[in-house]
């Protein structure tokens, strides 16, 4: 496989292709007939997904830094370049994006009935933007992609969403934009520092790493960047846009939102917060704050989820809880924790994406999302029930599923440094069972009482084709996480070493940060 990929020069062009092929797909979709738009979009996104599979083999596991790097000048006067690269952190995010997009498109065939061409064009635009976020190694370019993803999502929620769609769309937009614009000022500060240091304008990630910020600067910039990413993740208490957006979004919108858009936030933590501001990221107060917020996210949203009558809202809150584990894993600042966080990111993308798809399928059959309206569906739709149970268990983190690996590693990593917090967070795993299992029971088991529920039909071939690969992946990662972990490890280790290494080399500035804060 590797030889074949080498022979076609795969690593030279694949990252560009993964951004620009979806963009080209927009033109194809817009040019096709209204009724054929979805087929065109699906096959196109599937082709892109298959193309991205090559990354699995082409990725060099011994290289901790960026690979498949390519740089072209873009705005020379500002030192902005169009430079792309991939490392162990972004590898799976890219693959998750291409995979989720084609799954979401396939899952939207019955749901999207109006303005189909526009919808699929926006989905492809979203894919291009998200891939761009994960592969950009120029901070300006990253910011452009980061913001660009807002527009298609705003329209997807606002045009094709539920009753309160406009409220949800604008809330989503304003929350995220608020965070990212403060980050823009932070980026400009870094740019200004780099320009004064190097004597020429640059936005390159590597140059920003080399600035050598003081403790105080790091703290302020950390806050600006952390705010932007925390809104996106979302970290408690900035999470309130998420349930609204998830509930109102059309099924494919929810899938993409959960599977990849939230990951942009945690990806930003790993890619920017930790390496750029290591001193601030390592500061005990900062770490404690982030860990506590993560734990509150896990525990609080679990309780909130447990009382939701609307199944979609319940799943939306579980998103916040899962992302709490990711935050925990990241700010444990251990290799295990960070790897666990990354696995939770993947696992959450798969399981929550699948849950939204399943709820969408139920909604198409029953036109309701109230848990109380269902009951006993396992008898009439056994395959649907099977898929739902597997997904729900993966979401809870049952051993043998991807969720377990991720949460276990994240908790293990946290335990190494902050045992008390890890213990509290472990309760979250129990709470997850507490909200998820009753929901499964009330929807699929119990008695089959309502007449409409008797008429629910089982999965169609298309729906099976959507869910089968998702479930298979959840189980595969659960049994055999090694290939995933070994691809992440060098890059993760490099991040951790940077955070710790800087601190060891300069113990003094760390104290300085403390005293400055006391001022």
């Amino acid at each position, binding site marked *: 496989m590797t030889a074949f990929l080498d022979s076609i020069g795969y690593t030279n062009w694949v990252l560009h292709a993964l951004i620009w092929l979806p963009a080209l797909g927009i033109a194809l979709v817009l040019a096709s007939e209204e009724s054929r738009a979805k087929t065109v979009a699906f096959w196109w996104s599937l082709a892109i997904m298959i193309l991205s599979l090559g990354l699995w083999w082409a990725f060099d596991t011994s290289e901790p830094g960026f690979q498949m790097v390519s740089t072209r000048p873009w*705005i020379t*006067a500002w030192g902005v370049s169009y430079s792309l690269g991939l490392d162990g952190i972004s590898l799976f995010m890219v693959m998750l994006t291409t995979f989720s997009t084609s799954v979401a498109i396939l899952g939207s065939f019955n749901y999207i009935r109006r303005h189909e061409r526009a919808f699929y064009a926006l989905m492809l635009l979203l894919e291009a933007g998200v891939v761009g976020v994960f592969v950009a190694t120029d901070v300006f370019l990253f910011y452009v992609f980061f913001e660009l993803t807002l527009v298609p999502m705003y329209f997807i929620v606002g*045009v094709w969403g539920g009753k309160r769609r*406009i409220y949800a769309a*604008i809330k989503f937009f*304003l929350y995220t934009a608020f965070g990212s614009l*403060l980050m*823009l*000022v932070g980026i*400009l500060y870094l740019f200004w520092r780099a320009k004064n240091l190097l004597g020429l304008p640059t936005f390159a990630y590597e140059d920003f790493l080399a600035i050598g910020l003081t403790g105080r600067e790091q703290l302020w910039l950390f806050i600006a960047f952390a705010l932007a990413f925390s809104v996106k993740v979302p970290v408690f208490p900035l999470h309130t846009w998420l349930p609204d957006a998830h509930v109102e979004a059309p099924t494919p919108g929810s899938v993409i939102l959960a599977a990849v858009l939230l990951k942009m936030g945690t990806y930003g933590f790993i890619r920017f917060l930790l390496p750029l501001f290591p001193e601030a990221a390592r500061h005990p107060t900062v770490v404690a704050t982030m860990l506590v917020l993560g734990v509150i996210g896990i525990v609080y949203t679990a309780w909130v989820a447990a009382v939701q009558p609307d199944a979609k809202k319940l799943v939306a809150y579980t998103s916040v809880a899962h992302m709490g584990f990711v935050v925990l894993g990241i700010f444990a600042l251990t290799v295990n924790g960070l790897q666990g966080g990354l696995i939770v990111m993947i696992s959450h993308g798969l399981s929550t994406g699948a849950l939204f798809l399943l709820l969408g399928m139920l909604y198409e059959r029953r036109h309701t999302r109230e848990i109380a309206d269902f009951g006993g569906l396992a008898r009439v739709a056994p395959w649907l029930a099977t898929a739902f149970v597997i997904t729900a268990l993966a979401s809870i983190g049952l051993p043998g599923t991807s969720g377990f690996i991720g949460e276990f590693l994240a908790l293990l990593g946290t335990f190494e440094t902050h045992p008390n917090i890890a213990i509290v967070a472990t309760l979250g795993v129990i709470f997850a069972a507490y909200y998820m299992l009753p929901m499964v029971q009330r929807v699929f088991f119990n008695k089959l009482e309502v007449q409409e529920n008797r008429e629910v039909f089982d999965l169609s071939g298309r729906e099976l084709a959507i869910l089968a690969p998702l479930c298979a992946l959840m189980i595969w990662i659960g049994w055999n996480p090694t290939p995933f972990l070994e691809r992440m490890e060098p890059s993760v280790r490099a991040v951790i070493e940077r955070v710790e290494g800087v601190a060891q080399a300069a113990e003094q500035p760390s104290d300085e940060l403390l005293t400055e804060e006391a001022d």
Partner: protein
Amino acid sequence: MELDFSRQLHYWWALLPEIVLCIAGMFVLVAGVSGKHASGAPEDEGDPSFSGGADLGWLALVGVLAAAMANGWLSGVHEVGNTSMIAIDGFRLFANWIFLLAAALTILISFGYVYRQRLQAGEFYGLILLASAGMMFMAGARDLMVIFLGLEVMSVSVYALTAFNRRDRKSAEAGLKYFLLGAFATGFLLYGIALVYGSTGSTNIAVIGTSVADGTASPRLLAVGVALLTIGFGFKVSAVPFHMWTPDVYEGAPAPVTAFMSASVKAAAFVAFMRVFVIAFHAVHELWYPLLWWLAALTMVAANLMALAQSNVKRMLAYSSIAHAGYLLVAVTAANENAAAGMLFYLFVYTLMNIGAFAVVIGVAEHGEEKLQIEDYSGFGWRQPLVGVALTIFLLSLAGFPGTGGFMGKFYLLQGAADSQLWYLMIILVLTTVASYWYYLRVAWYMWMRDADSYAAPTTVFSSLPMQLALIVCVSLILFTGLFPGPAIDFAHASVAGLGAWTP
């Protein structure tokens, strides 16, 4: 070619674009009177030779084109020394491009409007050209008196244009309001000029600059003069708290005139503002910097907050244009090389996106000034997808979203502010930008996310060639500067080289 202004003729050469534009303006005026266009009375409609003023519009465009050629020629001309009354530098030429572009776009979007509203085409287009000539004087002036003259030529033309729709009471009201407050502001400006003259003994800004720098200027008179000039310019760029006239005037004026005013009148005032403050008062930056800091902050915050509450799209765009004045004031406050270049870049993009947005407003309003409420945009996007996408792009660009020229412009302004370390002002800028997302996106959500209450036929206004031309130019240039801003940045950067001894 080199001009050293030793002979009278050199001034004629240096003013070639202005002269061409003035001649064209007067020619259009005369042609309007002599032709069949005089009255625009209804009985003309049956007459096959009745053109609704379109021929005069094309004639005016030819005039703009000729002035553009003169401007292009001027870029190959070098001046000797820097104390002549008229500058031949990149700053002036770049600004001239903006004015010519704005004039051309305004004329293009006016064709249908002039016809439907039965306006006297000759006077209308003629005044646009004359106003543009006045702006060009302002941009090129190195003497406070020339700035004043240019300002008056521009203002008087625009007063008339504002009140142009005689049958509309709102238009007349707007014209009177604009005239009274404009005259008031001009008084401030003139008094400021007089005090600066009293303090330094010159009206030439280069000489003033030297006099201020070596301390021979009397500081008290100078301080009051600078403050009065700030107020005068503040009125013209409609900075808060001197903005009171703006919403009413912008709402009452004929829509194409509003587009013209909000783009190029503002640009002219800013260009003159920047030149005077950077060259003449460079040495007393500490004196006026806090004044402008607060002016910028206040303008951004107040305008964006007031825009949130507007339900009339024209009025909303009026407040939005005040907000943009706030962003541009950040550049004047920073007063460094990047800020000046950023201002030029931003004015260029702003002209495109603002006139583009007004073009769509004109189209939706159909028979003049009726459908201006935001509800009138319900479902508009799906009814006319191409125009809907165009308006969405204009709005995203006004909001400063990546992928559009508006983002690059805002980023350029922020860079300029960063160079002067105006971190708090930058934070205010981005936070008010978040607020602006709300009102820009509100139009987008009405357009795409709501269904129209009743079926409305697609408006035919957009099917006319000049309108389409204007929209295509605006959209393509906004996207081009958003994706490949390099050429425009380099051009803007080269244009401000040597404008001032930049503050570090």
